[in-house]
């Protein structure tokens, strides 16, 4: 194992998984949104639900494809770059990922075909079912992957013989101590992130004066979700934090930038952690507040980084800043939801332009928060890849630094190119808007909306572009 390969391999995995998480997070939310729209359409017969379903299906399809192709290299990286991880932890982690493939991946990938292309081949109830199954599949996927990841943070249900981990109690493994909190927190994050995007898109159309019916529906559905999920996420995050305090105290110490256990701990709002000097410079903190928050007592002691030797501490600055970014955005989203809900209650939300502009620009916030949260938790787990069992530095494959450097560059170029183009195309689809709905005009005439000529032209153009010779 070449030590030089370690930082490159870490960077490669961190980079590939960071790009990846953006798309499944959006897919989880948008597939559920499409399924909901389809159900609403079938139940009410209102054409704008149909148009919205078609519109968001296109966006979902692009996001889903990017999630799939960015995800496949991840499971293969367990072998190519982290073969010691596979060898030591494979008996436990392997089956969990195996179940993800068997229960989730096949379900979503297969029914995706019906959802995207089966509008005319299957009866309506079956088409809606396909969309629901896809949404369900994305959630099951989240279940298994978070179980596997949580086990790495709070291992349980296993024994170690001759340096290899063996499973003993599968229930304890799957439902390990941190899993329920992390699963709930991530699912909520996925739905919240998508809701912010839907709200933002609705707000933008309202500002532009186009697609009024659809825009109002999107705003209502998006805002309703944000108003509920953003505060919920704070509660879930708090519970998650308390669980982390119990099982991974040093991670909490890093999140708090708390070096020395010398009495009740201050809540550090901002500062500059210094790993070498073992202190946080320029601290702005609330005295004793960390003790109150974490132990519900003014005299409670909070874990400190100096409780353990330096080689068992994570890179504090990364964890510290990432945590604050995530919480900061979380608070902002609570504000977005609360202000929007108030304006909605007063019947003014569709006309309050400053709010529409605020919402319209808020779409990336969920994604940034998700990335910041994952940096917090994964970097906070270091130096362990499996807490207390295997250090990341010892999990590497016997591959040379030159080889890893080459693959890292190849991944970086590919991912950067492909995925930024993908985001550009999604924005293009959003700009294009939920016009027209099908090659054939819909059965109900009033469904063509308030711009019949434009819709007719659009429908004709779409029909011709899918024919044999455009």
């Amino acid at each position, binding site marked *: 194992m070449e030590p030089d390969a370690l930082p490159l391999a870490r960077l490669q995995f961190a980079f590939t998984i960071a790009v990846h998480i953006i798309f499944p997070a959006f897919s989880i939310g948008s597939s559920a949104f499409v399924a909901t729209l389809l159900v609403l359409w079938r139940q009410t017969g209102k054409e704008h639900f149909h148009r919205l379903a078609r519109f968001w299906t296109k966006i979902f399809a*692009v996001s889903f494809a990017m999630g799939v192709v960015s995800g496949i290299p991840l499971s293969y990286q367990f072998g190519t770059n982290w073969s010691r991880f*596979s060898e030591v932890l*494979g008996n436990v982690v*392997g089956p969990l990922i195996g179940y993800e493939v068997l229960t989730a991946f*096949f379900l979503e990938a*297969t029914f995706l*075909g019906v959802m995207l292309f089966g509008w005319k081949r299957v009866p309506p109830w079956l088409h809606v079912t396909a969309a629901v199954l896809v949404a369900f599949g994305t959630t099951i996927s989240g279940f298994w992957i978070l179980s596997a990841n949580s086990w790495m943070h709070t291992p349980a249900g296993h024994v170690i013989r001759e340096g290899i981990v063996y499973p003993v109690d599968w229930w304890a493994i799957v439902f390990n101590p941190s899993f329920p909190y992390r699963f709930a927190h991530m699912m909520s994050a996925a739905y919240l992130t998508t809701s912010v995007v839907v709200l933002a898109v609705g707000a933008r159309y309202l500002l532009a004066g186009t697609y009024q019916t659809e825009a109002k529906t999107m705003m209502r559905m998006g805002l309703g979700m944000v108003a509920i999920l953003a505060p919920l996420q704070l509660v879930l995050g708090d519970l998650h934090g308390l669980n982390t305090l119990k099982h991974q105290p040093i991670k909490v110490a890093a999140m708090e930038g708390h070096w020395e256990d010398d009495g009740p701990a201050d809540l550090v709002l901002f500062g500059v952690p210094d790993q070498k000097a073992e202190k946080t410079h320029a601290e702005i903190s609330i005295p004793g507040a960390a003790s109150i928050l974490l132990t519900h007592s003014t005299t409670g002691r909070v874990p400190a980084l100096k409780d353990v030797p330096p080689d068992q501490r994570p890179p504090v600055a990364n964890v510290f800043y990432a945590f604050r970014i995530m919480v900061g955005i979380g608070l902002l989203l609570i504000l977005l939801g609360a202000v929007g809900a108030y304006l909605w209650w007063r019947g003014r939300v569709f006309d309050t332009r400053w709010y529409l502009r605020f919402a319209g620009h808020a779409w990336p916030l969920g994604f940034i928060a998700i990335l910041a949260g994952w940096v917090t938790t994964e970097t906070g787990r270091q130096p362990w890849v499996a807490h207390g069992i295997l250090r990341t530095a010892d999990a590497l494959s016997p591959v040379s630094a030159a080889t890893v450097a080459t693959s890292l560059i190849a991944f970086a170029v590919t991912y950067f190119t492909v995925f930024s*183009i993908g985001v550009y*195309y999604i924005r293009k689809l959003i700009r294009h808007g939920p016009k027209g709905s099908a090659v054939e005009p819909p059965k109900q005439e009033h469904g063509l909306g308030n711009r019949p000529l434009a819709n007719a032209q659009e429908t004709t153009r779409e029909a011709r572009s899918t024919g044999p010779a455009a």
Partner: protein
Amino acid sequence: MTPDTLTGTAFWLPLISAGIVAIAVAMYVVLDGFDLGIGILFPFFPKEADRDRMMNSVAPFWDGNETWLVLGGNGLFVAFPLAYAIVMPALYVPLIAMLLALVFRGVAFEFRWVAKPHHRKWDIAFAAGSTVAALCQGLMLGGLIDGLRVAQGEFAGGPFDWLTPFSVMCGLGLVVGYALIGACWIVMKTTHDLERKARAFAQPLLIALAAFILLVSVWTPLEYQRVADRWFSMPNLLYLSPLPILTAALVVICWRGVRGTHTTAAFYSAVAVFVLAFVGLAISSYPYLVPWELTLWDTAASPESQKFILIGTAILLPFIIGYTVFVYYTFRGKLREGEGYH
């Protein structure tokens, strides 16, 4: 560990697991084979309308097809973690190249349509991604058969050990093979000019594939004594000779199917040829998962892990196959007008 010294679950469990992994890999090769084949054939079908229809013919299936790759690779991870830990670093370069090629191929399905009329770069991405992925899969196969250097339970060779004339031949053979089943798929799913042109392409491809299979069948026993012993010793020769005979028969059926008017015979016989070639390779390499050092028993996961995943697989695999068949049935027959990406 040799099979003769093991009894009971210690013997059967890894064998069943290996069977499941083999089935997953075979399913992948067949299903993604025609998807990739379509991409490989793209440069030879320059009309936009043809390309539209080729892509639309596989649009509902490609994602489910590619998932078998995840099951195969993951199956190895789950059931044979030691083999996974050795084989993956050994095949690092072609594996990473394949994964990146599949990224481009996969997004091309969606991006090409959103990008219209500036979709030319995605045509290239689709064609190049498919071809590189197929080539790399063959290189990995050849590299695996060549054997890996192992020391103290870890890969101990260099980054280009897998690159040999044999593996290059396997790579080219697989590209040709996938192009053939891709062409047969187009024959099955499209009509008029596109179908005719696909038939015309399938003929030389079939001949080329037959030549490659013949070449591999002659090369491997000549190069590897153990393979010669496996196939040509008695009574193995009697039991195994149906395989090449059946393969030859299927090649003839495929030829007839391609030249005639029947639309499905060519595709299914080409698929059968692939399956038989795969079976042949499995016979040649059994029981080694890490040729030629470690058997499937050497590298198997703990029995608890294998049992845990096999129970689930036994229940879930029938469902997966069931709904996969359902989706293929739903989109059966020729591609309909206006169907697909829009």
